[in-house]
């Protein structure tokens, strides 16, 4: 079996689900003949036609909004926002409508849609192309926020998101779209939502992260292993609703926790995880919880990106700090 990248796994999941369910359609800017600017929808137009692979006008508000109308009618729209920075105008639609229409109508109308967007820095793109605003979405009741971090999880989690009867914001870490390849059988098997994945077991410290930062965290864990430190790495995967249980059990074991994300520190999703751990794990924490994140600054243009984003050195440094506490 050929190995595929994360973005190819997204494509494979879309094709799979569109083949299996005629109600699934994809829409967005340049998703048709162009196959999406990252090629996530490449080849779908030929296979499924232009009614189910819908090039929209350049209208982000509309992309979120029409998806709600389609979903209420029983279609399953998988909408693509070209870059997360451009999702802002459709947050109104997601927050005020997609996430609440089930509640507002007591289940009479529902919104089984997926809003996909590539997020995060690291690809030398212009301004507004590199943000990590996952916490904005994770704050919204009624929504799911899912972030894959490997080809295997991109495939399994996207299938699960499309099959989920509620709206899902599916954020794809574009820096690692083509970083690693894995064998991902196209067997239609979804992975579970609402659970964290322990992607590297360890005993001395828990590193909690998601998206592209899982890779930096794994590299950091390798470096730490050279120092004789055993780090457990957790990929949160579904940020909302949050599986605090898995994280809490891990921290109970290790007594130490470092949370890593690209987004700014204040009000980032790490803050929520940290608060929950303070509630659940106060008496088995051996050290303060440490967060390694972007700064509370505007995401810089790419010449300063490496200085902004958490590096493996910063992660290793944070782990060494929490290990200083006896």
């Amino acid at each position, binding site marked *: 079996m050929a190995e595929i990248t994360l973005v190819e796994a997204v494509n494979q999941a879309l094709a799979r689900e569109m083949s299996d369910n005629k109600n699934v359609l994809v829409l967005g800017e340049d998703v048709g003949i162009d196959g999406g600017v990252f090629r996530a929808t490449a080849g779908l137009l030929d296979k499924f036609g232009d009614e189910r692979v819908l090039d929209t006008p350049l209208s982000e508000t509309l992309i979120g*909004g*029409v998806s709600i*109308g389609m979903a209420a*009618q029983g279609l399953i729209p998988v909408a693509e926002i070209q870059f997360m920075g451009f999702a802002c105008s459709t947050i109104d*639609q997601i927050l005020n409508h997609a996430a609440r229409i089930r509640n507002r*109508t*007591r289940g009479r109308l529902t919104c089984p849609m997926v809003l996909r967007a590539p997020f995060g820095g690291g690809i030398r793109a212009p301004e507004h192309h590199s943000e990590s605003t996952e916490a904005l979405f994770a704050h919204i009741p009624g929504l799911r926020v899912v972030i894959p971090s490997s080809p295997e999880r991109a495939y399994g989690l996207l299938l699960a998101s499309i099959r989920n009867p509620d709206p899902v914001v599916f954020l794809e870490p574009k820096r690692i779209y083509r970083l690693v390849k894995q064998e991902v059988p196209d067997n239609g098997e979804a992975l579970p939502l609402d659970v964290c994945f322990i992607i590297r077991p360890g005993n001395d410290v828990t590193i909690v992260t998601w998206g592209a930062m899982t890779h930096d965290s794994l590299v950091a864990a390798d470096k730490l292993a050279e120092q004789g430190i055993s780090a457990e790495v957790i990929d949160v995967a579904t940020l909302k609703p949050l599986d605090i249980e898995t994280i809490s059990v891990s921290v109970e074991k290790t007594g130490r926790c470092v949370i890593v994300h690209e987004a700014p520190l204040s009000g980032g999703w790490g803050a929520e995880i940290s608060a929950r751990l303070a509630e659940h794990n106060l008496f088995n924490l051996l050290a303060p919880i440490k967060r390694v994140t972007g700064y509370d600054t505007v995401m810089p243009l790419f010449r300063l990106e490496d200085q902004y984003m958490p590096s493996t050195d910063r992660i290793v440094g944070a782990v060494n700090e929490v290990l200083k506490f006896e």
Partner: protein
Amino acid sequence: MRKSPPERSGTVARFEVNFTRYLDANGKVVSTPLPRWANDPEVLLPLYRTMVQTRTFDTTALNLQRTGRLGTYASSLGQEAIGTAIASSMWTEDVLVPSYREFSAQLWRGVTMTELFLLWGGDERGSDYQGPREDFPVSIPVGSHACHATGVAYAFKMRRQKRVAVCCLGDGATSKGDFYESLNAAGAWHLPVIFVVSNNQWAISVPVEKQTAAQTLAQKAIAAGVTNEQVDGNDVIALRTVAERAIDEARFGEGPRLIEALTYRLSDHTTADDASRYRDESEVELQRANDPINRLKTYLIKSRMWSDQDDQKLNQECKQKVEEAVKQYLATPKQPSQAMFDYLYEELPVSLQHQLDAALISEDHG
């Protein structure tokens, strides 16, 4: 093929906006021929009844609000003809995507007064319509539902269903991006969707001339390549003529339409508003003469389809129905705390169980 520019200077396109009115403010016929059904009491009387029922509902709702038995309420006083005409031109299987001042359309389509009272009385069950199951709940954010109607229409078209989505908006909504984006996409995709703009000339305190420099709101469709027309929004015969044609054409593949219905908001914006802060009572007084209900009533009496006695009887019936609905509404116990969690997701995520437990404990402790 990409288009090349024309060879010479000159006008390259012309557009027009047509206005339709059959009855003037006094119920006098000002345009002929009237549609055939304008002499048919079986068509006209149900329209009249819904308009009167809506007004009776409205008056009662205001009273309930003033006596603390309803929340903030947005009256539809003076605008009853529009929704009535629109809904009466729709098929049952069409989908209405309303804003919050479309009671007449909703009542026609089978939303109950009890449900309307429940919603404005602060209860989500008011949007769980037992009648039109696929109709959208009212959109409180102005204009954002135009996108939903567009999506509904896309689903109809994709499934080759002969159904139409009808979106009701106000004049304020036509300043919003969602509205333009929806019109534009509906045009590009040639969708069976009708946008009905009730131009009641006030968006809370901002008059329409401050919303836009456009001569009409109907013309906003032109830039999107969408057919437009303007109609007297207080003339139910003109409204139904225009709506029926637009909806039928959309149903059979003629694409979307924007209808601007000219009317006037006789009430405050909502019960939380005091319109005397920004508009003259003399303006409102003048507009009362355009009342859509009186206009139709005069026409019906002149045409010997109706009498003052019939009218008294109808008013009694409408009051009775509203009173029944009020009783049902007031007798409906509020939902338990659990209800906040019941419809958040199809299945409550494990992580929310603790919060639900906490809510139930605090409910037990009063």
